[in-house]
């Protein structure tokens, strides 16, 4: 089988970006929108074809094969070199489908949403750039290629968040997102350096093959603080993932990133880029699992679990609907992380791995849908805040229905896509780590609650007196909604364990009924509470909030993470380090150099008296010179 044509899938968006970017002035809005959609259309067609082709006959005696097509790009040493290329295996194909699908939907949607914006073409250029980078990341054949595209998605996310670049808040958010993730990527880079130093390769194939250098040779490497350098390397690489996927403690950029246009949030900050961390861990899963008994993997698990819990708690309190969705994204990604973390390798043991990929897939669908729905609501109401909304169901039926479907799906309501994937995750957690299991059940309940809090607040509740009555969004926006709604119901029925597994061997996954029952009932309880609280306007929520008092306040302010970061950066790094550096440079280094000059001049002023203008002084110095020289000669040098 030959999959080399898949290289086209990222290259088409690149071509789009170049064309739209270079001629952004020339190309009229009407054309650029279509151009973008068309390009992504081709990509999605190709990737679907690839998926079909691969999953149908990509197996060799029951094991999914890995296909690599690559080209050397830069040679460091005789062993280390960067290749660019495509790597075809189940998860990459799966991700490829996800990325192209969502991207295509967002393109269609944006044609309506961004209509009349003066940067229309620029917007589509950025989207194309992002799609290219994301696909490159997904198809990466080695760590370094992944790092390259990792940086590129960061940059394009910077550009897209800062799309409204005249808005200070947008600029600040873009900077924040870029710098925070860049800091995380520093870990990624150092991890790469460590690993490559000991293994002498960047290649995923070598790093993940069971007899590969990494897994075989971790014991050989030096150890630091009781852990092998390999484990450190993996943890540092994971740090990059934590940054991109907005896990604790690097999650702070995600809420602010909502400053970007809503389609962007849907594409980048819900469906694709933010799951890159999950994808990274999945990509290196064997290494994480086998090196030093999977210590790094436990780190992954706990970070995921904590993040999901914290995010869910915060989501309950937020009032900006996009921020609610952002935190829900964070918590769902925490789910995927913990699923990976608790997973094992062989066969049914590797359920968690499968589950997290599964959830990644379904989550992409319904979360994108949620964002796009929120987008269409915002489009109608011109506000992000719940308190400006309510009773929208009669104004915008399509949005309402699709949003409801998505909410049910994410809440894990039986029969919807989210239900299946989440159930697998809980099963996997239950089988390996009870603590994580309980927390994730709790999260499931919270998720259902805040989702429906959102839902009821937007579409039910009292009808605000809108200045100009909201209306349903145009077709260009509703069609993607409908499609995604369809997906978020039926994506759950895909037999994922047949396709995506840790050891590349299909296995049979069954619904674990008791656990499923617990999970869904918890979800339903959450929905009911939300119903009681928010179906009709009431003072219950306030009473409740006051009951919890400072805890509520604490959570509402996102546990003061931002404040902490601002303190560290502004006060310590800028205020102390940078300030002292520049001060030192100005007042010590520079002035010492100037000082040399000044000393010379002042000395010359001091000694000017020697030239007294008196003839006889000159004569004295003349004779004195003779005498001194004679004395020096006779008393020091001779004898």
């Amino acid at each position, binding site marked *: 089988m030959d999959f080399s044509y898949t290289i086209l899938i990222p290259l088409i968006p690149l071509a789009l970006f170049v064309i739209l970017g270079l001629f952004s002035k020339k190309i009229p809005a009407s054309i650029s929108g279509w151009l973008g959609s068309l390009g992504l259309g081709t990509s999605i067609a190709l990737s679907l074809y690839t998926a079909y082709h691969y999953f149908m006959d990509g197996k060799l005696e029951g094991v999914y094969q890995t296909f690599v097509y690559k080209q050397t790009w830069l040679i460091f040493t005789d062993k280390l070199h960067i290749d660019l290329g495509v790597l075809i295996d189940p998860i990459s194909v799966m991700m490829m489908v996800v990325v192209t699908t969502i991207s295509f939907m967002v393109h269609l949607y944006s044609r309506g949403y961004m209509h009349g914006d003066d940067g229309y073409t620029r917007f589509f250029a950025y989207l194309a750039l992002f799609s290219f980078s994301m696909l490159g990341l997904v198809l990466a054949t080695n760590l370094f290629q992944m790092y390259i595209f990792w940086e590129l998605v960061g940059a394009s996310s910077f550009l897209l968040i800062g799309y409204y670049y005249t808005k200070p808040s947008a600029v600040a958010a873009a900077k924040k997102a870029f710098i925070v993730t860049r800091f995380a990527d520093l870990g990624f880079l150092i991890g790469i350096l460590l690993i490559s130093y000991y293994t002498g390769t960047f290649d995923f194939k070598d790093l993940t093959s069971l007899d590969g250098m990494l897994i075989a040779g971790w014991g050989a490497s030096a150890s630091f603080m009781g852990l092998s350098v390999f484990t450190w390397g993996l943890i540092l690489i994971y740090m990059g993932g934590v940054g991109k996927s907005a896990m604790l403690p690097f999650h702070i950029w995600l809420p602010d990133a909502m400053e970007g246009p809503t389609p962007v949030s849907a594409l980048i900050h819900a469906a694709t880029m933010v799951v890159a961390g999950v994808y990274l861990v999945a990509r290196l899963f064997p290494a994480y699992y086998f090196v030093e008994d999977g210590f790094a993997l436990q780190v992954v698990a706990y970070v995921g679990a904590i993040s999901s819990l914290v995010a869910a708690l915060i989501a309950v309190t937020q009032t900006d609907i996009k921020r609610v969705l952002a935190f829900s994204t964070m918590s769902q990604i925490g789910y995927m992380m913990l699923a990976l973390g608790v997973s094992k390798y062989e066969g049914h043991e590797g359920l968690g791995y499968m589950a997290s990929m599964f959830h990644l897939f379904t989550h992409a669908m319904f979360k994108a849908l949620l964002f796009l729905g929120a987008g269409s609501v915002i489009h109608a109401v011109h506000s992000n805040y719940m308190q400006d909304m309510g009773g929208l169901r009669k104004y915008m039926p399509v949005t309402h229905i699709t949003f409801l479907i998505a909410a049910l799906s994410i809440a894990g309501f039986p029969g919807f896509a989210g239900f299946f994937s989440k159930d697998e995750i809980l099963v996997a957690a239950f089988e390996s780590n009870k603590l994580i299991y309980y927390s994730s059940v709790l999260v499931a309940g919270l998720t259902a609650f805040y989702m429906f809090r959102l839902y009821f607040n937007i579409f039910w509740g009292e009808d605000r007196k809108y200045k100009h009555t909201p209306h349903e969004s145009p077709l260009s926006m509703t069609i993607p909604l409908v499609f995604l709604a369809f997906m978020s119901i039926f994506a759950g029925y895909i037999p994922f364990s047949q396709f995506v597994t840790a050891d590349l061997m299909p296995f049979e996954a069954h619904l674990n009924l008791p656990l499923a029952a617990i999970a869904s009932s918890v979800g339903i309880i959450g929905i009911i509470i939300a119903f009681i609280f928010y179906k009709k306007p009431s003072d219950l929520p306030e009473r409740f909030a006051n009951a919890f008092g400072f805890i509520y306040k604490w959570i509402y302010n996102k546990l003061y993470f931002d404040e902490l970061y601002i303190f560290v950066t502004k006060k310590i790094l800028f205020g102390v380090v940078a300030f002292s550096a520049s001060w030192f440079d100005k007042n010590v280094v520079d002035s010492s150099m100037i000082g040399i000059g000044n000393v*010379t*001049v002042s000395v010359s002023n001091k000694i*000017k008296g020697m030239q007294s203008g008196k003839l006889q002084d000159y*004569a004295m*110095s*003349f004779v004195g*010179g003779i005498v001194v020289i004679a004395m020096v000669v006779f008393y020091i040098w*001779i004898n």
Partner: protein
Amino acid sequence: MNLESFLLMRSEIGLLAILLLLIILEIFSNKKQKAAVIPFALILLAINTVLGFLPLESGELFGGMFRTNALLYFFKTTLSLGVLILLLQSADWLKEKVVDENKATEFFILIISSLLGTYFMISAGDFLMFYIGLELTTLPVAALVAYDTYKRISAEGAVKYILSSALASGAALFGISLLYATTGTIYFESMAEILASSNLAILGFIFFFSGLAFKISLAPFHFWTADVYEGAPINVASYLSVISKGAAVVILMILLFTVFKPLMPVWNKIIYIVIIATMFIGNLFAIRQQNLKRFLAYSSIAQAGFILLGLMSVDQLGTTTIVYFVAVYIFSNLGAFGVVQAVSSASDKENINDYEGLYRTNPKLSLLMMLALFSLAGIPPLAGFFGKFFLYTAAASQGYYILVFIAVVNATISLYYYLLVVRAMFLRQSDQAIPYFKSPFYMRLGLILAAIGILVAGVYSPLYDYIFSISNTFLN
């Protein structure tokens, strides 16, 4: 000894002839004819200079009192070329200021006789000839310093110069007498054979050295320099800084390398200290100066310190480098003084801040000034850079790296004050800048010759290699 052996003194005789001609002219010519004296003298001197480029075999006269060889001969020619340039630069000044006082001729007479003195000094074979040459070099210049009668600072400078130089030559004589006491001869060659490192000899050497150090204006024997330069007419100052200093350096080198070779361990150390003192004193004083003559005086003191670096290597390398650097230094300094002369004769301004905005009004002059100063500071591709670098090389060849390091530090300091002048001319703009003026013919000729010297003497390597090829003639 036959008559044609007098041809060894060709250049001296030529100068003497010019001298006599001028004196006769001075006596037997009326006011009108005197106007013609300037071109006449210049042409004669030019002829003499050109003749100087004819080859000459080495030899000695008067039982060794007078000796000459290729190197000395080359150096004499260089000096007379320098004097020619100098006179070209001062010709118009003489026309304007002085012809009405009928003093042009005596200026020429005095300068040329002083040049004759330097000739005798450097090709002296014994201390008597040397002493006569020294005095003959000094006295006419002393008269010239006071050339602007009725100008107080000139008179003051002249007094300071004549008295302190008398003191200096007294000390030198005393030294010579002590040396005579130890060796019983005043002939260089025989003294070189007899001289042994006795205390008396060393004392005599120190006295003698002080006398020459005075002429070269080495610290601490330099104090007269600034005042005299400031007091003297510009071209006289430039004569002092270029010709007499250069000649003194060369004769000092000859004596140290030949006569005082036995005392080398002693004078080596003395020179070492004197170099450092001179460079620092010169630079530190130069930083502060406003009057350009004074400024150039101190810069020339610092340069003297650099020249002495060549003395640290007592061999062909040192000799060549010193002669070469002196030649280069003559061109550079003449360039600088020439510009000062031109400007002051056009506008009577001699201070650095008068030069502000000069480039905007007189680009060519300021360009030449910059070239000259950069050459003094040792910036490639100008001649001065090569001279300085070879001086460092000479010192380093004997392993005096620390001395070289101190020298380069001083070179950087000197760059600072040379740049101050460049700053005034190029960077500053001023509304009362010196207005544009067109220098007269002779001046331009003199300046152009100097500029050519600055530009060519460095990059054109055969010059140095030629000096090297002839410089072994007296070392053996």
